[in-house]
């Protein structure tokens, strides 16, 4: 049974902040097939398209029939632990300060033998479910999880290195004026976040459901205007060293395409509220978060972007909005590379139209802010990097994978 995580004590200001170190981050190009699966929380291995052999470690030829057709496919994750060891000394600086560290050999029911991290509740002979997770270096590793959930299993120290669980972490939600920010605050409170800072521009101005937000446990309202660089800088100066998870809930969806909009005012507002706000947050909170990637139980862990799935492919009905979201996605990819040195994950939550006033004329299915907030907490708990939330987002992703040109035409029809 996993020991329940203890609420971290206030940090001793005289102690040196532990510098973030990373496990080895080099992988072969083929092995990034595992990274792609881990980024989405899937368990996928290469399955030979010619002979059906499931193989691991990743290869460029099938060891059964020498075929080169070796796509990654989701496979059953069940297996048995054949042997385990506790590593007590390591040549690597990251693991050296994290020993003892348990690994084992798991025979998967689908064939391969896996050298893998072991969850603390998994012992020799146990049945396990394998999962692929992203480690601090941003690359996929496997961890064998208990066959059935155990008490406090999310608190396991080795698992917590691979996740961004909000439990006992301090969260900044950048915009609490909208329904998504408010739902996010509730979800974080339910997930055990110790403080939830919620940014509100001009807090003296009332806004819908303000009373409920203020009454949400552990919520602390801060005055934050994402379109004002000085405001972002001021809040970062005050709070950046206490932000373990940043969730950018700023939104500015406006309907309309490119050609029929008159002038650039709306487009500039969109870019200011979304793209430039992301840059402001990255510049003022990013460096401090990156430096705090190994700062104890509540180390900095994640920078979360809520993106429209139409960042991936333009939806002409919301054409300018889609373009703004695409800019945000591109910036998020840059930020992901920049924060990796600190072991901080950048999560991109891709959503379809939300069930809010700004998508009033769009027919269902639409995504409720609560569902988006719940999915965000789930992604943080699993350490997922790219999450497609709801029916529309998953539909768009599937069509994009299958036939992007068809999707472009269909969205423009």
């Amino acid at each position: 049974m996993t020991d329940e995580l203890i609420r971290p004590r206030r940090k001793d200001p005289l102690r040196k902040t532990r510098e973030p170190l990373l496990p080895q981050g080099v992988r072969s190009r083929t092995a990034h097939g595992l990274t792609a699966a881990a980024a989405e929380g899937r368990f996928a291995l290469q399955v030979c398209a010619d002979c059906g052999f499931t193989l691991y470690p990743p290869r460029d030829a099938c060891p059964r029939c020498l075929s080169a057709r070796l796509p990654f496919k989701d496979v059953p994750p069940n297996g048995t632990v054949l042997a385990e060891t506790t590593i007590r000394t390591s040549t690597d600086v990251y693991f050296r300060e994290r020993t003892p560290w348990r690994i084992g050999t798991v025979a998967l029911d689908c064939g391969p033998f896996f050298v893998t991290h072991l969850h603390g509740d998994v012992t020799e002979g146990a049945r396990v479910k394998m999962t692929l997770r992203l480690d601090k270096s941003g690359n996929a590793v496997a961890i064998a999880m208990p066959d059935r959930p155990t008490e406090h299993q999310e608190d396991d120290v080795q698992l917590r290195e691979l996740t961004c669980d909000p439990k006992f972490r301090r969260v900044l939600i950048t915009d609490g004026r909208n329904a998504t920010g408010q739902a996010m605050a509730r979800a974080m409170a339910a997930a055990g976040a110790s403080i939830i800072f919620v940014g509100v521009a001009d807090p003296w101005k009332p806004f819908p459901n303000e009373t409920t937000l203020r009454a949400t446990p552990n919520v602390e309202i801060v005055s934050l205007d994402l379109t004002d660089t000085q405001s972002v800088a001021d809040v970062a100066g005050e709070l950046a060293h206490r932000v373990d998870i940043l969730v950018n809930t700023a939104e500015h969806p406006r309907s309309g395409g490119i050609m029929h909009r008159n002038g650039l005012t709306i487009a500039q507002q969109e870019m200011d509220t979304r793209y430039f706000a992301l840059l402001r947050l990255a510049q003022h909170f990013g460096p401090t978060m990156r430096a705090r990637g190994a700062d104890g139980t509540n180390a900095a862990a994640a920078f979360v972007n809520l993106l429209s799935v139409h960042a991936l492919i333009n939806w002409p009905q919301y054409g300018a909005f889609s373009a703004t979201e695409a800019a945000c996605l591109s910036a998020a990819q840059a930020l992901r590379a920049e924060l990796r040195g600190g072991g901080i994950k950048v999560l991109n939550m891709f959503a379809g139209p939300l069930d809010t006033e700004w998508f009033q004329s769009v027919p269902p299915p639409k995504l409720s802010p609560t569902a988006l907030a719940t999915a965000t907490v789930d992604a943080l708990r699993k350490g997922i990097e790219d999450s497609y939330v709801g029916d529309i987002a998953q539909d768009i992703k599937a069509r994009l994978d299958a036939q992007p040109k068809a999707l472009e035409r269909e969205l423009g029809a």
Partner: protein
Amino acid sequence: MKRRGYDGVVLCAPISIPYRRYSVDSAHWWIGRALHALTQRTGLRPTDIDGLSVSSFTLAPDTTIGLTQHLGLSPRWLDHVPMGGAGGCVSLRRAARAVQAGDADFVACIGADTNHVDSFRKTLSSFSRFAQDAVYPYGSGGPNASFALITRNYMNRTGATREDFGRICVAQRTNAQRYGGALMQKPLTMDDYLNARPIADPIHLFDCVMPCAGAEAFLICREDDAKSLDLPYVRILSAIERHNAYQDDPIQFRGGWAMDRDDLWAMAGIQPDAVDFLQTYDDYPVIVMMQIEDLGFCAKGEAPAFVRSHTLTTDGDFPHNTSGGQLSVGQAGAAGGHLGLVEAIRQLTDQAGNTAVPNANIGLVSGFGMINYDRGLASSAVLLARA
């Protein structure tokens, strides 16, 4: 087709360059020292050495070809054998055939590596593609962790205890004290062994080799050339190698020796009881046990009982790793694959000094190496006889 013998080809000039824990010198330097010692021992000039076979992990960016210019050699036969602990026997097999076929007259076989302060970590993290993709990110325990899993599985399946492994390590330390060239010569008791600090359970400190710098070398030539140079020599009775054997075993429980040992014994025309000493590859005692079983000294799973009922010191009834093996002498990278072979040549040419096994006429040397992912891929063995 039946394997052809190695008639007329012999091994001579066993060279060991004293090991050092850390060295500021390069692998080139260590190989140079070994070759220099070889020329001095044999009276050959560097230009007479027309064949060169080298095993080394720390020679980058060079391979053996670069060494020819570095060392001023002009060989007509050249080999690079990147097979770690199996390298000595593999070099021998290839070089012996070259000499037999007349492609070369004098082949220098050298295993050598340097060990800078940070060499070991760098070697581990980039050892192989599978190690990089699928082993090193998992705790970076190196071979200690890989062998911990293999040892654990072996203990589960055979009932072997830590004390059984300890018998191997303690006996080798006794041998090392007689050898004199070992980095670890301090007496080792069973209590010391059992109370050592854990490294990766069930592996404890004295199950592990100490990475170091060093070089081992020997010469392969025709019997009549060895005679005319007045060099004591040994004959090759038989030799085997096998790679990636038993791929479907979930955890390594046996090595490639088991696939080819019938050939090994049949080619030599002898049985295991004819062997006077055994030099195994011993980076961890579990792999010694597998060699004892898979080479045919006892049945599978019975090595723990075998080591309990035999004495493994040079004066015992089953002399094993007579110079102390890597567990006591140190693991000088790829030189570890040549250590047992060089010691065997000393044993069979009356050059073993204090480690001499009385009346040693036949010796078996086996090699093992390359933990590419979860198991050692390369295995090799040779049977040698006093001339």
